[in-house]
């Protein structure tokens, strides 16, 4: 074979694509009906939350004193009724959804970032550094997180961005522990030893070999962390530490609704349903991902 032909053969063979573990995982995920329906539901809820308010005739902070505590009705355009200030519930739920979902995502992102970095370093280098870093995590674990969040809120003021950071700063501890454990078992693997024997730098071993192989458990954990962050925000809002009026979140709406549920059931039922559906979807997706990424049967 002359050189030209050889290069041509090589070019052809380079176009043949392999089937990566991700492609396999995606195929298995799409075979899981519950996960697919959940994914679909979640996408719809997100799109409606983000774009829905633009198509509704009411604004989330508009008060309509003529229609206080109005039950759901199609004639008035208050499809899900109104609250005690005559504000349209549907538009408030969608606005709350924006906030709850973005807190869920951003706080999770913050905690994953800190947790993965911290966990891989502690797990990979081991020894005294590991002991030191994990003791810090344990001390932080021992602190009641509510007090921690309250202190943050008091010091920095009730700013919505600090709410993101405060929740993220609490949630990263678990992430760091999980990542550390996985890193320790990964670094015993022979392909990591081979890389070390090759003289690969520690930073590149972590970036090229450890983190990509951690991606599976991390993604699964993210889907389980987002709901817990949404619940945490609801809880803080319930205590009055969360977002402030007229801004709202699902947690705030539920806490308000629960006070009025005897007179205006819709104020609790509708925000509650949105939240339950979202959380259930996230959990089903998490389960589906776990089965897809880490299959035991095959």
């Amino acid at each position, binding site marked *: 074979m002359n050189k030209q032909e050889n290069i041509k*053969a*090589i070019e052809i*063979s*380079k176009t*043949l*694509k*392999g*089937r*990566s*573990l991700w492609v396999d995982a995606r195929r298995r995920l799409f075979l899981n009906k519950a996960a697919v329906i959940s994914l679909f539901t979640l996408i719809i809820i997100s799109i409606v939350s983000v774009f829905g308010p633009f198509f509704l005739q009411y604004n989330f902070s508009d008060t309509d004193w003529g229609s206080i505590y109005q039950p759901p009705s199609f004639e008035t355009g208050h499809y899900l009724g109104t609250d005690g200030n005559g504000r349209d519930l549907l538009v408030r739920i969608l606005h709350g959804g924006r906030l709850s979902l973005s807190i869920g995502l951003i706080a999770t992102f913050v905690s994953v970032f800190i947790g993965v970095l911290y966990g891989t370093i502690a797990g990979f280098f081991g020894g005294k550094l590991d002991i030191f870093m994990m003791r810090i995590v344990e001390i932080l674990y021992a602190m009641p997180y509510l007090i921690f969040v309250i202190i943050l809120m008091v010091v920095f003021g009730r700013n919505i961005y600090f709410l993101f950071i405060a929740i993220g700063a609490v949630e990263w501890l678990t992430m760091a522990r999980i990542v550390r454990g996985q890193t320790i078992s990964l670094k015993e*693997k*022979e*392909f990591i*030893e*081979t*890389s*070390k*024997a*090759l*003289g*690969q730098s520690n930073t590149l071993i972590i970036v*090229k*070999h450890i983190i*990509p*192989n951690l*991606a599976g458990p991390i993604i699964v954990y993210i889907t389980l962390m987002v709901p817990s962050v949404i619940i945490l925000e609801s809880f803080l809002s319930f205590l009055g530490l969360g977002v402030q009026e007229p801004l709202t979140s699902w947690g705030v709406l539920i806490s308000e609704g629960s006070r009025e549920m005897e007179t205006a059931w819709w104020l609790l039922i509708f925000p509650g349903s949105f939240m339950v559906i979202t959380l259930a979807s996230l959990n089903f997706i998490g389960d589906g991902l776990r089965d897809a990424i880490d299959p035991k049967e095959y």
Partner: protein
Amino acid sequence: MKDKSEEILSVDNLKLYYPESAGLFKSSNTIKAVDDVSFKLINGETLGIVGESGSGKSSICRLILSLVVKTSGKISWFGNDLDGYTKKEMKDFRKKVQIIFQDPYGSLDPRMTIGSIIKEPLDIFNGQLSKQEKEEKIFQLMNDVGLSNDLFNRYPHELSGGQCQRVGIARALINEPSVLICDEPVSALDLSIQAQILDLLNDLKSKYNLTLIFVSHDLSVIKAICDKVLVLKHGIIIENRNTDDLFNNPKDDYTKKLISSVPSPIPLAK
């Protein structure tokens, strides 16, 4: 041409001890994984290390590559003590001494394609090469170890055990090392694949002027490929001789027992 009897690597009084975790109130014992091991590796030879599980044969490989920290002893590369090496010299040493492991799947990163796995050592040592030069080299190596080109973009889980072991060999050889340490390279493979990999190692040995350290628990494999053999038991070398000598008239009782324990594939007439 290098002097045939040139000594590449020498190991003197190498020891690896570690404390046994014996529980809270028990006194801890010392486990001697490698105990006072000395040997020399001569250019171009294949040195076999044979022993049963727990004999310390894998520990010796990891000690040579500084993957574990030795308790005491000296490892010299062309007469220079590795302890005195600077970071840069150590990197050069790592380029020259490569390893392949037992588990063909475990030694390849499951998230990387075959091409990028073989490329990794080039990125570390030959960063100045262009993308095309690197690819040429990768395909050259894949060819040498008997992997077809269309595996370039495949992932380890799509390959058979024997193919994965070939990928490991290609990765080890891409920077043209002088020593290849093979830690039980065929133990996890089927018999017919074993024979192919052993043949391949023999071919590559002459093609790349390699010196091999070949670790195995399987005496038949050792006999088939090695010039000299170290017999290890509980971290101690009990025999260090030419392969033919060792198998024809084993001196030590343990060696005799090892050799007589290998089941013969020739059945007795019944």
